[in-house]
């Protein structure tokens, strides 16, 4: 059994290790290791298209994750105060946001936005005082909106689970001691849910940073890092892609490890409280 499990871990990590190894290849070859070199990294980092795509991805991931963390936490807090019917509607919509395939989310957002823009742009042009009316179109905004949808559901789910595990008694004790609802929130509830909010933020960030399919539909003329990587893969496998892939892996590994530590912190506290 141990051998089996060990080989599964090998299966999980060996391909990644191979990608990383060949990113340091001195030659052009993707199969023959001819010597150690970091030239593909400097080549990748000197590639302005790549850097632009990276900046776009970071900006989109950060914005959508911040919005999702704030609105998702608010929704998680508000939902427990809703009627059971209202809660069921929200639960259903959040579940839909998670299970509907990304490819469908991308398509639906694309058709709806293009339709909305085709009405809005002429209307905007007719009332615009200047010569050059702004043209609304697909781009950063639509990617942030579509990524934010999944992230919002993700954060809400995580924070809601945390709130459910909190004891009601501590909140009641706080109000018995004449704390205002806001003080109770700031001093009692917020510190306890903060790790899960942060974990939700980080998961949302990695989701957006790594997502290809949703952005592929709604990006318009903008390029995100996964879209750039996908396009380069289609042009052919080179060690430069390996270098980019390695950097992407390291970035998401770091973020996800922090999120794991935050979530683990949460569970140990819960267990200690029991």
């Amino acid at each position: 059994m141990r051998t089996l499990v060990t080989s599964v871990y090998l299966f999980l990590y060996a391909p990644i290790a191979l990608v990383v190894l060949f990113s340091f290849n001195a030659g052009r070859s993707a199969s023959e290791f001819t010597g150690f070199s970091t030239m593909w990294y400097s080549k990748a980092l000197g590639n302005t298209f790549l850097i632009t795509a990276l900046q776009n991805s970071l900006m989109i991931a950060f914005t959508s994750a911040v919005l999702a963390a704030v609105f998702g936490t608010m929704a998680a807090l508000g939902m427990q105060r809703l009627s059971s019917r209202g809660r069921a509607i929200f639960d259903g919509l959040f579940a839909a946001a998670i299970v509907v395939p990304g490819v469908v989310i991308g398509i639906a957002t694309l058709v709806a936005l293009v339709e909305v823009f085709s009405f809005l742009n002429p209307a905007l042009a007719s009332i615009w005082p200047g010569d050059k009316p702004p043209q609304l179109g697909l781009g950063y905004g639509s990617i942030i909106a579509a990524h934010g949808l999944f992230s919002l559901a993700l954060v809400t789910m995580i924070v809601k689970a945390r709130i459910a595990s909190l004891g009601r008694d501590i909140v009641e004790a706080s109000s018995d001691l004449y704390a205002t609802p806001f003080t109770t929130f700031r001093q009692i509830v917020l510190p306890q849910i903060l790790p899960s909010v942060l974990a939700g933020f980080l998961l949302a960030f990695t989701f957006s940073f790594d997502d290809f399919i949703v952005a592929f539909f709604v990006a318009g003329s903008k390029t995100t890092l996964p879209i750039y990587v996908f396009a380069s893969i289609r042009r052919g496998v080179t060690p430069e892609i390996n270098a980019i892939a390695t950097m992407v892996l390291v970035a998401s590994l770091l973020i996800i490890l922090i999120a794991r530590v935050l979530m683990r912190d949460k569970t140990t506290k819960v267990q200690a409280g029991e």
Partner: protein
Amino acid sequence: MPLTTDRKRQLTTAALVAPAGLWLFVFLVLPFMAMVVFAFGERAPEGGYQAAFTFAQFANLPSRAAAFWNTMMIAPVGAFLCLIVAYPVAYYLSIKSNPKYRLVLVSLVVVPFWTSLLVRTYAWMYILGSRGIPNLLGMIGIEDVRLLNTPGAVLLGIVYGYLPLMIMPIYVSLEKLDRRLLEASADLGAKPVSTFFRITLPLSLPGVMTGVALVIILLLGEYLIPQLLGGGKVFFIGNALVDLFLQSRNWPSGSAIAVTLVVVVVLVLSVAMHIAWKVSGSRQVELV
């Protein structure tokens, strides 16, 4: 005063859920409705959409039957293969592993899932491609082996990509399992094999169900794995959708397929929930 505090409470609640509600409505409900409307429309001559009310797009679905067929065949098989690899790992992690290292081992399983699927699939493109394993086989005299762009390659990519998602729910349900049941079974003279089949396996079925349902549902919308490892020969509904929207710009036809895909997802999900509910008496589906 109770009335005003009540009112205040209502307003706070509304303010808390309003942004999320608005987001869900504008970027989920409305787009979905738009997509349904498009599905009953016609393709404009220059591509895109033209208003109409016709069932032609749905009547035309059989022309994409191959994509549906591939998806509906490969997704369950892929999920089953995932399960076969995942179960022993989940079992080992939850029952046999040293508790001291358990968290680290579990993290090592989860972490790849949150790293780029694109990069992980690229790794296999690399290994199965002509300069990878076939090249090595060529060196020992086995020529002309094609691994990339076969159903096998797609299945391998699926198992690789979704293994963590299968291991986690099974691990969680095995972890919750009351160890005293296993001891009691052994004390009553049951052999380990019969303890496994009569106690452990049935009690872990909710986790198995969750894992299988999650993997199948995500696979129904998969694009990257068949695109990169199937190379246009093994294509899924997701690939047909990208083709219709971004290449041939037939939006109504694509919308009809997307709507059908959502119906399939909902059907699979309700069957899974129904079975899970029968098996465990709860509908909990854990995603993270």
